[in-house]
């Protein structure tokens, strides 16, 4: 079933709201004295910090330092410099995250129960300190412990990365000098790798600021027409995606999908492979292979139409709608290209739905639906990388083109060199099937989209596997309209592996340590949220149960996306067997389905109630050598605080009238 508003998340929000209102109503006096209360809370926090210190908190950064030292003396070489740094940072930050979460989670769960057991709460509770201050104090103290450990570990990590950086730089310089010497002596045909020199001078510890564009694989592109014509390459993994909104069907006749591709070469028989997916529930799919006729057309009707089409139940009058549908189309026929229209009008659509229930559409007299205009094409995809192939052997087929579109550029925000150029960095992978000995060269076309008088800048670039290629482009291309950068391999048998941020317009870099610090702060957000949950569960529970509760919260908080997808399907429909299964009408099937449906929804409410831990992802920026924007950090801090408040409210409501002895 498709809901535009998720009822379960509404229920969860309502519960949180009730908690907050109850908190404000009961705690307003305690909140009112928070002015002086903060220093009392910090007194509690200080003591908690000292306790953490006596619990050998200091040992963790020390062990960390030892690990860094050992690793530093036995640096694993053999990665490309960029990925080496990425591997280290991933390991370090993940490890820090785990150590801190586990250690401080345990301390948080122990803190209040232990005070209750040792009865120190009796002495403290007779002082003018409110329960809210006690709670906040515990969180502040452990938070301070987390921060201190984090900063200490950060410094060691940074020192270690400095050593790595130093090694990589000197290695790169040695290689560059060797290449240059060989080139000068004519031993080597290829000019020395500029990327090496770049690495040697700039190092790998960077926090780059750059602007990324929107990447689209143009497939095979022909600039002869306006707009350019795009082709899907047969026999490759290139896929075109057609997206349709909810499709209404009649019960008497069903809609079908109609395909119309331009064939190149014309008249050659071709086949397409279709995968239909219900977008709300990607587990519901149907696949088919269809032959195109000589004109490039074919029609296809799904076997189970009501997985994809909505209809009105004649008895109840209810609309049963599976929601939007996506068609993925590939062409398995070699040496064929399918021309794809941009889909802005009926005449240039490569796929439409015909025979829909016109009565349910807003426009009268129309019984077809167009997909979203300008369908997306992707190449071979793995781990977020896509591939574009080089030209055909004798040059009869052009290479595939990847196109980046940079919109809303602010020319002032982009630094220029003295001679009026701005810098573009190109980082892509190269795989070679033939011509292994030849270095890869790529063609880069840069032009401004709106001004035809502004000449296209064409460059031939030497591309090194995953190493920076620095490109200088004339300032005139930044004329306020969108900048288009097209890239293609020009060597036969060479693929370029690219992704959205493979082409970057460079801005002034930030400092690496600052970036590391911001990354650590995001870890801190996650840790302090867990601390809050731990302390709060310790208000009512003994420490073993509190630990278990906190663990469950963390795990469920990490399942956020998984559970929301799970909950889209209902009961046994999850298994996608409901429509044709003969058990469907049997009472125990229905009972089981009902129970599992209820369970999934309870889980869903629970997940919506608990803080979403998937939000905090410290790694993507720093491992990409990219500076984390303050906005991203701010959003994380804000999210952590927003999630902490209901947790603190729950803790307060539990603590408020609890006896302290």
């Amino acid at each position: 079933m498709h809901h535009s508003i998720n009822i379960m998340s509404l229920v969860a929000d309502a519960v949180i709201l009730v908690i907050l209102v109850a908190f404000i109503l009961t705690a307003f006096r305690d909140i009112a004295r928070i002015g002086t209360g903060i220093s009392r809370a910090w007194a509690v926090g200080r003591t908690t910090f000292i306790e953490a210190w006596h619990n050998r908190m200091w040992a963790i950064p020390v062990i960390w330092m030892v690990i860094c030292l050992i690793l530093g003396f036995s640096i694993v070489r053999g990665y490309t410099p960029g990925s080496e740094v990425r591997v280290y940072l991933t390991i370090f930050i993940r490890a820090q995250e785990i150590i801190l979460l586990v250690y401080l989670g345990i301390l948080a769960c122990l803190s209040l129960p232990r005070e209750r057991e040792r009865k120190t709460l009796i002495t403290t509770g007779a002082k003018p300190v409110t329960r809210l201050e006690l709670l906040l104090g515990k969180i502040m103290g452990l938070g301070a412990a987390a921060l201190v450990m984090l900063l200490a570990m950060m410094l060691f990590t940074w020192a270690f990365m400095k050593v790595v950086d130093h090694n990589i730089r000197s290695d790169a310089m040695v290689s560059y000098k060797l290449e240059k010497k060989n080139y000068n002596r004519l031993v080597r045909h290829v000019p020395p790798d500029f990327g090496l020199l770049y690495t040697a001078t700039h190092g790998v510890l960077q926090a780059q600021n750059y602007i990324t564009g929107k990447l689209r694989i143009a497939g095979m592109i022909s600039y002869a027409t306006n707009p350019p014509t795009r082709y899907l390459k047969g026999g490759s993994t290139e896929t075109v995606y057609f997206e349709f909104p909810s499709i209404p069907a009649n019960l008497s006749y069903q809609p079908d999908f109609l395909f119309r591709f331009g064939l190149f070469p014309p008249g050659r028989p071709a086949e397409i492979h279709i995968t239909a997916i219900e977008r709300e529930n990607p587990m519901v799919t149907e696949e088919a292979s269809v032959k195109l006729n000589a004109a490039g057309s074919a029609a296809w009707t799904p076997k189970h139409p009501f997985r994809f089409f909505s209809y009105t139940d004649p008895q109840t009058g209810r609309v049963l709608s599976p929601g939007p549908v996506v068609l993925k189309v590939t062409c398995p026929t070699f040496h064929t290209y399918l021309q794809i229209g941009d889909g802005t009008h009926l005449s240039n659509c490569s796929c439409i739905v015909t025979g829909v229930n016109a009565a349910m559409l807003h426009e009268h007299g129309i019984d077809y639906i167009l997909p979203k205009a300008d369908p997306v094409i992707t190449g071979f995809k793995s781990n977020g990388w896509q591939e574009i192939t080089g030209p055909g052997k004798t040059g009869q087929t052009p290479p595939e083109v990847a196109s980046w579109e940079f919109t809303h550029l602010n020319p002032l925000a982009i630094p220029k060199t003295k001679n009026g150029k701005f810098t573009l960095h190109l980082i892509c992978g190269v795989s070679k099937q033939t011509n292994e000995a030849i270095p890869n060269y790529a063609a880069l076309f840069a032009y401004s989209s709106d001004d035809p008088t502004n000449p296209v800048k064409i460059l031939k670039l030497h591309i090194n596997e995953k190493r920076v290629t620095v490109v200088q482009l004339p300032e005139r291309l930044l004329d306020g309209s969108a900048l288009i950068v097209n890239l293609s391999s020009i060597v036969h048998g060479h693929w370029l592996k690219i992704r959205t941020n493979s082409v970057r317009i460079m801005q002034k870099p930030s400092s690496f340590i600052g970036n590391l610090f911001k990354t650590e702060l995001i870890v801190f957000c996650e840790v302090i949220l867990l601390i809050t949950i731990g302390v709060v569960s310790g208000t009512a529970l003994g420490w073993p149960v509190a630990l278990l509760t906190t663990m469950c919260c963390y795990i469920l908080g990490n399942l956020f996306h998984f559970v929301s997808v799970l909950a889209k399907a209902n009961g046994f429909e999850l298994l996608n067997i409901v429509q044709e299964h003969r058990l469907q009408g049997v009472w125990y099937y229905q009972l089981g389905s009902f129970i599992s449906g209820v369970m999934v929804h309870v889980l869903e409410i629970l997940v919506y109630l608990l803080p979403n831990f998937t939000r905090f992802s410290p790694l993507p920026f720093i491992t990409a050598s990219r500076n984390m924007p303050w906005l991203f950090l701010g959003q994380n801090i804000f999210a952590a605080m927003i999630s902490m408040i209901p947790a603190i409210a729950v803790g307060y409501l539990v603590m408020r009238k609890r006896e302290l002895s």
Partner: protein
Amino acid sequence: MVASGFAIQTRQLTKIYPGFWKSQQVAALTELNLAVERSQIFGLLGPNGSGKTTTIKLLLGLINPTAGDALVMGKPAGDQDTRRVIGYLPEESYLYRFLNARQTLDFYARLFNMNRAQRRRAIDYYLDFVGLDPAVRSRRIGTYSKGQTRRVALAQALLNNPDLVIMDEPTSGLDPVGMLEIKNMIMRLKDAGKTVLLSSHQLADVEDVCDRLVILYRGRVEIQGTLNDLLEVKDTFQLEARGVTPEIQTQLLEFAQRSGLTDVRTGRPRVRLEDIFKNLVDSKRKAERR
């Protein structure tokens, strides 16, 4: 704010500790009516398990009453603002084992929002006041002897210069000198116009310091009144003098018989062990100092 002159007032204060079964419930305190006047030293007596500690915890709002209510310094028990003027010495010294004496007092002083100078002054003053050996002050409390810990706990209770001091068995774990010091301290608090509520098993001490007392038994008040009312034997007269020769003794006895007095007892008065102990320690200390 203060309508009554009472520092503590309870009405029908009752505490039943809950239990899963009815038989597990404990009626620790039943309908207690107390009235402690300001500047009074009030004793709370009773055998083990009679509800003294329960009463004190109720007064501090550490536990919630099952029925009845209590006013402390004119406000309901457990009020945050009244806690500023209360000092509490728990029955056992529940302190953080990982802090040293100074850190401990610093922590509690911070809870009273004292600033740095005030804290330093109060800590130095009260550590000397309770006579904690300077050699141990920077050691963790976990390593202290029972009496040393007790002294820190006592300092903690006096730190805010409270108007009302509630002490649960203040002398437990202290040496005789310490006990005496506490007794003197309580008298000094009284002179300073403070109210003291204390529970104790040391009847002699209670006798020496208290103005008024109640004796609890199984959570109920059995005896209550001022010390004079309770201890004075109204129909008896005592005479003590020096230089009484055997002749005078016989004459006195004869005179008593003639006058028709009954239950006449004679003998030499004894000093109390406590006094001997104190005199000895005092003279030794004086000798050491010289």
